[in-house]
């Protein structure tokens, strides 16, 4: 079996060690004996999202957003079709905002996003920075996700399902207690850390969804996650006690 991972704009969207998410996904597949191909797709590079098993979109700084929005504009139909066909996507921070309807600047200007999710982001007056713990339900199992948030935008998700409920930290906007968003197999979050290495339950859930989409119905082999779990627990203990 060969799994195809697509890292979108690794040269531009590589803030806060986010490539660690790709690494976590890839390693956990390889440790189970599967072959993985990583495609790094930069501005203008061809890609058909239907052929991808896992798409990762990270965060970038403001000066990069315009270039990316223009390039993504040409890919949006292809991506939309793949998402409706259950493409597994993880979008973090800037990548998360990009999938939404718009980003409203402090001057009130609305910069359009890709509109793939019914969410929008408003520039805040203070940055939301710090460690976060989020309670999420994955495959009807409760799990505590940990990470570090650092965002100026506040995202509101309307009726979209959140990734989880904030237990400590700010999450989407610091107001409504939600963190991240989920739509079909698209998972969005503000959590860096990076997110996947320290939250192996989420990583494995993404892997199983990707396999399911390819028509495989198999139980994932258990891995020894003692380091991952102790890193996760250490942060939960620090934040919640």
């Amino acid at each position: 079996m060969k799994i195809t991972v697509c890292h979108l704009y690794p040269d531009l969207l590589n803030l806060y060690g986010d490539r660690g998410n790709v690494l976590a996904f890839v390693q956990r597949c390889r440790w189970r004996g599967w072959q993985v191909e990583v495609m790094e797709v930069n501005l203008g590079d061809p890609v058909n999202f239907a052929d991808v098993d896992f798409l990762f979109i990270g965060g970038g700084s403001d000066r990069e957003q315009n270039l990316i929005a223009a390039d993504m504009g040409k890919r949006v139909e292809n991506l939309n079709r793949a998402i409706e066909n259950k493409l597994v996507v993880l979008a973090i921070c800037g990548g998360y905002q990009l999938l939404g309807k718009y980003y409203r600047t402090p001057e009130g200007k609305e910069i359009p996003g890709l509109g793939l999710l019914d969410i929008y982001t408003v520039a805040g007056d203070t940055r939301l920075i710090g460690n976060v713990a989020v309670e999420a339900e994955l495959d009807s199992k409760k799990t505590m996700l940990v990470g570090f948030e650092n965002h100026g935008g506040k995202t509101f998700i309307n009726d979209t399902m959140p990734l989880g409920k904030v237990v400590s930290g700010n999450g989407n906007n610091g107001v409504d207690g939600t963190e991240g968003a989920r739509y079909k197999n698209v998972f969005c979050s503000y959590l860096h850390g990076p997110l996947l290495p320290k939250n192996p339950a989420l990583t494995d859930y993404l892997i199983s969804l990707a396999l399911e989409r390819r028509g495989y119905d198999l139980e994932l082999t258990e891995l020894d996650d003692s380091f991952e779990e102790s890193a996760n627990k250490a942060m939960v203990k620090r934040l919640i006690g």
Partner: protein
Amino acid sequence: MIFRFLLALWLAKIAMVMSKLTGKGRGSSLPGMLALRICPDILKHYSSQTGRGAIMITGTNGKTTTSNMLAGALEHAGYKVINNREGANLLTGIVTSFIKISSFTGKVSCDYAVLEVDEAAFPVVIKWIQPRMVTITNFFRDQLDRYGELDTTISKVVGALKKLSADTQLVLNSDDPLVAKIAAETGYQTTYYGIRPAAEISGRASYSREAKFCPFCSEALTYAVYIYSQLGDYKCPNCGFTRPVPDIEAASVRHRQAKTVGAVIRSGSSEWRLELPVQGLYNLYNALAAFTASIKLGLKPEVVIASLNRYLPVTGRMETFKYKNKKVILALVKNPTGFNQALDGLLVGDEEQDLLIAINDNDADGRDVSWLWDVDFEILLERQERFKRFICTGQRAEDMAVRLKYAGVSVAQISIEKDYNLAIQAALSGECQVISMLATYTAVWPVEKILSGMSERVKFSEDHGMSSVS
């Protein structure tokens, strides 16, 4: 108010003696802090006393080494130099350096002040001391909490530079687009230094690359040769911004798998052979910066080269200890670029070694440890057989262990020991003759304290395998 000045000076001097007596000698900024509290404009009293003027070195990495190299060259040429040698590069540390050599009547006698200045403190420091020359090493992403602020930091440095007098001289790294652009932005007379972009020195990791866009028109920069981080032979395909041809250039560079760096330094049709007794391309950049500044100050190139060839790294950022028959090296790591260089250093040589990595997440370390994923730990696997054990300690020991695991280090080789004492004991009790310890800012001190209690500090090691990376 001379009375206020003297009061500040004397109290600071007393504080200095006290901290020496109580053994809390680490507080190199405390006397300065005290003096500033009493006499905020204390530096004014000193700035006029630096006979030939002040030279400031700023940028993200290499400030300490560059300023020590420059001070060394000036001293080698017979000048008397004030230098904040221990890397105390905020306003308080600079004040302390002046107080230290000041007489009780407030007199200092020196030819030059060579000051390394933190990028963020630069706008404040130049209010009190106007440098005749400013050397800028590079701009890298530092603790990631501050990432979004790199642009802001650079524009604050540029804003401060613009307030200096029109005859200020700049010494700039031509290979860093974020630094090279400053010549056009300030209009000052600029001398560039750089490394000849040859294919054989081109670097591999691109994870923590910073400037990919033209600072003038935002078009993506293209690189003919890429050295490390964003350093290299860059060009903007749109507006023509391009790596300036350096006035002083290093060519025929030898640095891989060696504990020294050799290069030919060229200026016009003259050339000199440099044999730096420390390793790493980043140290070649530091030496080039110091060489270029020295030449602009009128020193003879031969004198500067001789001084650089004898350069010994100061202790503090990198220290060597002896425990029984084992060699213990302790180095500070504070950002992905510096960490990558420290790892490059570990690859040199053939001894088997154990590694201790101490990661904290206090404000001074960066509260977000995500940056560990921008460090290229994967390169350690190139010499896998040489690294026996990886002991992770510090507040974020578990995160470090996870990072190593996903880099491909076997789980059996990794251990987590949050207690510094136990971690260090474990590291020292292994079979390897070499133990390397890498620690973030607030982890270095406790590790160093424990180490110096149980082993012997070596003043200068016979080889300077792993030198300061900041």
